[in-house]
């Protein structure tokens, strides 16, 4: 149209519009990476032996050996028992803690207490809690059950408390208007509303506890983790890989089952 005008240019606008911020971010990331890599203690000599060691481990691990299937079976049975008992205990106990930690139905001091319990029990990885319980109550599945109960209270309690904070308040108001007591209001107006969520979370937690029960055994809290740790410690890599394969299979099955149940809860 206008033959004399300059060639029109178009370039894609950058993802981050301000060039200062963009270059600042790139520089920042580069600086962070170099700082982190420079300060972290890497033992390069030991790392360089990694490849032959990996070859030896995987060579020793294949084919996986199921010879000691009895040990494998008893380990898994214990893991399953730990997960089951911890889930039941944890889910039951999570209900009062969730009620305590819901801002809309708990008085202020109780709310703060409930929140504090949930925050602390969620901050610690189950393995750390397991170590402490092993020191307090000795080696074995008891420590595992206590650990995973606490873990379940933290997780289920938090999500349930959030669910309670989002309920339809009109139903609570209606129960107050008929003169229902606090407990009756809870079971009529609050619990029916959170029930589907509660069932879904319990199934999820059972699955999650089964996974975690495989690792708390590493620090001596019972279950298949201890068996795995021993196999690794004694360089029985073929048995260790067999355990790993079964762990993967069990977790896939439990994930499938828990997903199926959760889909069926409307």
């Amino acid at each position, binding site marked *: 149209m206008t033959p004399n005008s300059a060639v029109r240019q178009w370039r894609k606008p950058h993802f981050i519009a301000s060039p200062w911020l963009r270059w600042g971010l790139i520089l920042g990331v580069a600086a*962070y*990476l170099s700082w*982190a*890599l420079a*300060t*972290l*203690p*890497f*033992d390069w000599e*030991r*790392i360089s*032996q*990694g490849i032959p*060691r*990996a070859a030896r*481990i995987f060579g020793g691990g294949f084919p996986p050996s199921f010879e000691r299937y009895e040990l494998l079976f008893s380990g898994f*049975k*214990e893991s*399953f*028992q*730990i997960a*089951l*008992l911890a889930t*039941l205990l944890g889910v039951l106990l999570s209900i009062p803690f969730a009620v305590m930690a819901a801002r809309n139905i708990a008085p202020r001091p109780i709310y703060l207490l409930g929140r504090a319990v949930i*925050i*602390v029990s*969620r*901050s*610690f*990885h189950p*393995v*750390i809690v397991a*170590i*402490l*319980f092993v*020191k*307090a*109550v*000795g080696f*074995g*599945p*008891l420590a595992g*059950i*206590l650990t995973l109960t606490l873990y379940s209270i933290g997780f289920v309690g938090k999500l349930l408390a959030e669910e309670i904070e989002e309920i339809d308040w009109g139903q609570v108001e209606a129960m107050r208007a008929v003169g229902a007591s606090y407990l009756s209001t809870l079971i009529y107006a609050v619990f029916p509303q959170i029930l589907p969520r509660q069932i879904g979370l319990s199934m999820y937690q059972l699955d999650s506890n089964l*996974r*975690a029960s*495989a*690792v708390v055994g*590493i*620090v001596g809290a*019972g279950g298949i983790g201890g068996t*795995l*740790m021993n196999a*690794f410690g004694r360089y029985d890599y073929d048995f260790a890989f067999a355990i*790993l394969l079964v*762990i*993967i299979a069990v*977790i*896939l099955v439990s994930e499938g089952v828990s997903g199926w149940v959760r889909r069926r809860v409307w």
Partner: protein
Amino acid sequence: MVTEPVSSRVWIRYNRRERWTRWSIMLLVCAVLVWAVRDVDIFWPWVWDAPVQIHSLGERMWPPDLRRLEEIVTAMVETVHIATLATFLTIFLALPISWISAQNTTPNRACLWLGRFILVASRSVNTIIWALLFVAIFGPGVLAGILAITFRSIGFVGKLMGEAIEEIDRKPVEAMEATGASRASVVLYAIVPQVMPAFFAVIILRWDINIRESTVLGLVGAGGIGVILQGAIDTFAWPTVATILCAIVLLVLAGEAVTSVLRRRVL
């Protein structure tokens, strides 16, 4: 007004069949419970003694010992480094895997199943077990920790990203294909913009989880605060253990605060 007479004035919450179902489910749960309680290898006197023991452990921890604070802070920084570097590495490894394991972008079926296998294997093996393996290979230290966290994160990020890719709107993809664009351009123009928010959300979420996970790596020798924690527990230095536990709570809370800020700013 009475349309149909109500046959009886009896009302029970559940009918006969529902009651039977409820009772049988309850019975089943109780049976499993009884089996688990009786069969599990618990030494019952320890159970009754547990509250006393836990209380006495708590007493031995008080007051927290701040003398090794400097060492603890250094280890904390190392823990954060492990989590961050591993998350960074995960981005590069997880994205191609999520791409081949999403049904609508995978090049062929073999790639799809390979991708899914990697994701499942990565997710099913816990970070600690990955750490155990990498400590055996590369020796104790932060590298084993970084790799352990990375290998566990790949499955998490890859699965969620794969789902995000599968849930994208097909229409822009069709429009791009209709223009005769190459496969790579289609991905760049039609898919990447759609999954960008999900990508940031998943990475931020995983970084938060990784902070928690990296606090325990040291228990199997893979670096971070866990090394000091294990040392303190082994030497029965309970006041130091208490300090470390407090530090971990602070770190996790700080991590949560940072991620919530990031979420608000980025998403």
